[in-house]
């Protein structure tokens, strides 16, 4: 039990889950922005494409957060990085940018841990 802190679990499945959700969340956020623009600027507050976009985006974001927390805790990244990833799901386009950085650094970290010492280029 005392040595469990030293064990590392494989990061790839968690990384893949995170990457999928980063793309889905980012895409839905853009769709939501479009709906907000249509709803409040052009349609006086009445839903255009439908409230389902906002509802679905909300729940997708919840799933995204689950994958973020899972990845963050398995990589033992600092707290600040968690905060950035949490925000990345609600700032348009940021989740796509964050996804590229996270993937590169996660794979770099994995390579280092495996003692190969090589860096993968994204």
């Amino acid at each position, binding site marked *: 039990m*005392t040595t469990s802190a030293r064990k590392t679990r494989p990061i790839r499945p968690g990384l893949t889950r995170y990457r999928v959700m980063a793309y889905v969340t980012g895409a839905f956020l853009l769709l939501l922005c479009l709906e907000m623009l249509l709803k409040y600027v052009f349609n006086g507050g009445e839903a255009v494409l439908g409230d389902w976009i*906002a509802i679905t985006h909300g729940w997708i974001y919840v799933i995204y957060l689950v994958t973020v927390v899972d990845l963050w*805790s398995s990589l033992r990244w600092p707290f600040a990085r968690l905060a950035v990833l949490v925000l990345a799901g609600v700032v348009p386009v940021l989740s796509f940018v964050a996804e590229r950085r996270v993937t590169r650094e996660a794979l770099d970290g994995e390579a280092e841990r495996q003692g190969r010492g090589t860096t993968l280029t994204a």
Partner: protein
Amino acid sequence: MSPSFLSTAVRPRWLGLLGLVLALATAFAALGSWQLDRSRDEADAPGIVEPVALRDVLQPQEPLTGDAVGRPIEATGEFTGEPLRVEGRRLDGETGAWVLMAFAVPTGTGTATLPVVRGWVPDDARAPEPPAGTVTITGRLESSEAPTGTTGGSVESVSSADLVNRWGSPIYAGFLVMDSAPAGPMRTIPPVTDDGGFALLNLSYALQWWIFAAFAVFIWWRVVRDAHRHELAALVDNGSS
């Protein structure tokens, strides 16, 4: 003896973080409650409040558009004929009848009949007399129900297709449910809320805020657990060297 999780958790650093996390969780929970309140309000409040003139929304013998249904409407005309009872209508768990009357609306070339539901009365009560002469009434516009035929002084549905046989042409395709204050045994019929009193979007947001609150507490636990394990590992390393 190895230190417990608690001994790590009460260190000033983690207690401070706990305070921050609980403040955040409280704020999230409050946002959840606020969304729940909004969810109830949105379901209760009609979208458009100011009544518009009937002639701006609906012409006699013309179909009712979806936009017009549920709209607050103002109509000027005269109640004519005898009231009809629309039987088998419930209000607050009681059985009774809607009081339906013909309302003659001047159209320039004559008059057209607007079916008007004045209110709801219990089974054993009679409706009070309508106001005489030309009056302006307000209420919401509803689309006609399916025809069921009419007999004597009662009907089972409010259907312009049925009522045109009784009251003659021209007639409006929808009917108006008056929002006037209760008079004697007659009560106002409240609008139907279609999703059980909650607006789905706000209800969904409310649940999500509470999940975020739980997330905040969970993350604190994860951070402290990691710190605790580090402490234990450090102890083991020191002991073995």
